[in-house]
């Protein structure tokens, strides 16, 4: 929690600003709807760390995917992720985005979220507790400091594979590719 050190602010205002004012777009699929409200309300106040829920992806820089991802939701998640401005971080919440979790054999949920959009951090647990969200936020701080939270750069470089995976899982996507994919049939 080096929010107070003026020296760091002057050296890297961009990094510090990213760290201490996460504007979250939370996608409350499945279990997320029950653990996010306690974190942003009185008991576990997330606003202490500058984490505020925000309405549209345009304003956000942290994308919290809470709970299992069904095929129809994946389309909305990719759409929201591509609409977020660039220094953006994603955190998978619960064991279902990691490897399918409780619904590993369901025909309608995707198993590894990492194949479709880059994910910087995971929170394990089937319904993780609000404290684990804060641990994830603090880990994200250290990753930003060390420059490891580079999901969005990976997305830009390897967009071709991501786009192929997405189309393989979802069939045709209505919106044009974000970055020039450059293959013939486009």
């Amino acid at each position, binding site marked *: 929690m080096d929010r107070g050190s003026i020296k760091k602010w002057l050296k890297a205002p961009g990094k510090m600003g990213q760290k201490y004012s996460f504007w979250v777009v939370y*996608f409350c699929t499945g279990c997320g709807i029950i653990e996010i409200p306690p974190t942003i309300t009185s008991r576990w106040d997330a606003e202490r760390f500058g984490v505020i829920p925000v309405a*549209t992806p*345009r304003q956000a820089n942290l994308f919290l995917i809470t709970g299992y991802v069904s095929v129809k939701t994946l389309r*909305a998640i990719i*759409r*929201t992720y591509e*609409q977020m401005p660039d220094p953006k971080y994603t955190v998978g919440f619960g064991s279902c985005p990691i490897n399918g979790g409780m619904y590993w054999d369901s025909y309608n949920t995707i198993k590894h979220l990492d194949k479709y959009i880059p994910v910087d951090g995971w929170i394990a647990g089937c319904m993780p507790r609000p404290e684990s969200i804060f641990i994830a936020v603090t880990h994200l701080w250290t990753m930003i400091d060390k420059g490891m939270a580079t999901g969005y750069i990976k997305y830009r470089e390897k967009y071709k594979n991501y786009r192929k995976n997405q189309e393989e899982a979802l069939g045709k996507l*209505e*919106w044009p590719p974000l970055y020039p994919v450059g293959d013939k049939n486009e």
Partner: protein
Amino acid sequence: MQLITILVVSFLGAGIVYLTGKFSGRVRDISAVLVSLAVVILVGLAYNQKIYTNFYSLPFLNLSLSLRLNYLSWFFAIIVAGIGFLSILFSLEYIKDYQGVGFYYFMMLFVNAGMLGIVLSADFLSFYIFWEMMSWGTYLLISYKGGKAVAAGLKYIIMSVAGSLAMLFAIVSLYASYGTLKFSSLASLLQIASPGYILFLLLMFVVGFGVKNAIWTLHTWLPDAHAEAVSPFSAVLTGVLVRMGMYGFLLIMYSIVGLSLLHKLGYGLLNFNYILCWIGAITIVIPTFTALLQNDSKRLLAWHGIGQGGYMVLGIGVATSLGIAGGILHTLNYAVCGALLFFVVGAIEHRTGGVRDLNELGGLIKRMPVTFIAGLAGISGLIGVPLTNSFVSKWMIYKTLIMENYPFLAFAAFIGTWGTILSVYKFLHNIFLGQLPEKYKDVKEVPLTMQIPMILLSLAIILFGILPGIPLKVISGIEKSFGVEPLSTTMFGMPKEIGELNLINILAVLLVAGIVVYLIFSLSAKSRRVNQDDNYAAGLFVPRGKYQYSARFYDQAYRIIGPYLHDVVDDFYYWLVGKSKSSFQIVRQIYTGNINTYALYILLFLTLLIFVKLGWGL
């Protein structure tokens, strides 16, 4: 000598244009532009000369038609000539595919000449002649498009004939009591007239000019006339032709009756000026909020025309030097903004095939940026955003209203401004902003001849907004001619003793603040250009074509204000027409068609005459 040349050039010009039109379109267009340009130059040259020529004396009524030029007439003449020239220039491309184009150009120049005649005439006879020329020319031009336009024209001509009859009645009574119709002589003769007679005269002239200037109870013809007339002509109609009523007000109230007499009319609060102010205030509020409910862009602008007319009447009604100057300046300002907005609507109509409905258009800024900038300048002029021209005139009107201790009138004017803001933003948003529909994908920008008038008028709005001194110098000349102590104005605002308005400071600070903010803006991280489909739609893809919020834009406000804004006056007139039709029905029964009933009528009439003669004899 010069005034006659102006009139001759404009009238003959109209004839020449019509004749050249017979054999080749190109020549006709060029000659029309040249004629209107010539008129502008001639009027511009005759700047501050005082000329009085009487050019024709009637043999029988020992009256003579005479022309004169002073600051007031020059001020209106230059507006008429300027707007006339620009609308001719605009309609070159606009009218190309209409039929009867030669007739259109002839009528436009003819109406312009009529207006010049009104402004330059020095006595009531020539004033009335040119007035009638203008009214009938306007009737023909309004019903130029046919269909609904004929009904609108009919409505217009009935009301303006009624107005001019009232005016004729007053002119005849003037001639009967004083034998002369010259303005200067009448001014001196009326000083000794009884207040009751002056009040009667003023009332008649107010009705005559009120119909033309569309004050509240006499305004019902204007929305239909503007909506149905051809766009370039409705620009002239709203900018200049309707302001002839304002010229008439100024002529009667200040140059002929004079300020001192006006204050003696009526007792205490109920004097003529105060009632005129209240009529002006109502004319501001009600039409501006009815404009909020309109869905047709031309009708919306027409209602604004009436609303802004209310400001002018309010300015003049207050009868202080600042108020009169504000009223006159607002006439110029609205002439510029109103004409510009009608040109913008004309450009949109030209490009989208005659679509005027605000619920059909959208997103045209991507295809027609110049028209958008002109529209933006027009609406900020109409609202009175600081650094635009009508801000200065509105500021003067508010200042006098507050200083003269009329807070409720000032409130009516302020609420009128807010009504303008709402409805005018809806106008801009529904046409230019939002999603571009499929069918307007390949709409191109309007050709150059339509862009020049728009750009010129936008520059005029900004110029007069920053340097109001230019028009105000002429207006102080006008006030000297009225005998009111003139307004001492600096080039860019008001001096200390009148109030604090220093537009150059506001401009400088705005520029500095704008530059500083732009620096902050460009220093921060770059932004990626995105088209209209890459939009937030709650995680889904944007439904093409179905993602524009423009139908019933201020829905909740409509529900609250709507029921009160039903046009009561219009219904009253239609009720009147209905009643008179049924009564004329009864009268028509007399003509039964066979001869003996007519013989019977003659017989009865004769007996009546004899009987009256006998009665008289006793």
